[in-house]
């Protein structure tokens, strides 16, 4: 991979890498640190990317995922990555900003459910790409994604519009 190809890869994927890290960690400085480490890793060892095994985007998101989880493990050493008994209770709505409420709900999911949901819903990766990025079987991805969505449907129930009326202005009615 030449320097120009590396710069093109950076321009093409920097937003996806940064967004994913930001959504996983809810911290702009931490997301920038992780995104920097992801691209420096590619700069130092470009041969680690094998085009025959998938797209560069899912490869970079996989590195991002590993760095984010490493930080998570350092911070929450005793918590489970995929807590099956996660109590998905309806959120107490204290803000009228729907984006904030949705972000809070997604961030409260166990990390292994959160990552597949973000990669699927926001980065629009296919199931096989998610499986490659998070290093597991497609069936496991489907199962985690299903549980994540079920949990969110319960947590965000207070935002259910009455009689199918939906607010388009970003506030709860």
């Amino acid at each position, binding site marked *: 991979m030449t320097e120009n190809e590396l710069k093109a890869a950076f321009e093409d994927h920097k937003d996806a890498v*940064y*967004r994913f890290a930001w959504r996983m960690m809810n911290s702009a400085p931490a997301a*920038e640190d992780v995104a920097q480490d992801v691209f420096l890793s590619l700069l130092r060892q470009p041969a680690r990317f094998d085009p025959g095994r998938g797209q560069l985007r899912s490869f970079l998101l996989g590195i991002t995922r590993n760095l984010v989880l490493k930080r998570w493990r350092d911070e929450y050493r005793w918590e489970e990555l995929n807590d099956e008994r996660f109590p998905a209770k309806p959120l107490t709505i204290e803000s009228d900003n729907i984006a904030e409420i949705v972000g809070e709900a997604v961030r409260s999911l166990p990390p292994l459910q959160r990552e597949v949901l973000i990669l699927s819903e926001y980065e629009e990766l296919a199931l096989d790409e998610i499986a490659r990025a998070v290093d597991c079987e497609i069936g496991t991805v489907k199962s985690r994604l299903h549980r994540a969505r079920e949990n969110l449907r319960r947590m965000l129930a207070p935002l259910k519009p009455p009689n199918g009326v939906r607010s388009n202005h970003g506030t709860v009615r």
Partner: protein
Amino acid sequence: MEPLDEDELNHLLRKWEAPSAPPSLKQRVFPAQKPWLSWLLTGSIRIPVPALVVAAIVIALWIHHSRPTPPAHVAAPGSVSLADFQPVQQLQPVLVTGGQR
């Protein structure tokens, strides 16, 4: 409380937007390299204090030893010093008379 249906959940998930990567990220990944002339004019280097002290001592010693040594003091010709003259300890006068020698 009734959970959201799939459409309602999809609609809400779209509301949560993430920012784009900040411009500073590019500078952190690809730091701009200054031309050497620019570095000479505006650059700076960090020197450890012990290395600086040793360098200062070496330079001071070198300057001290490379100074020309002053010539030894030589009495100017034509001047007479009486410093080595001693007073006579014992006089032994000799009478010289005429005709004797």
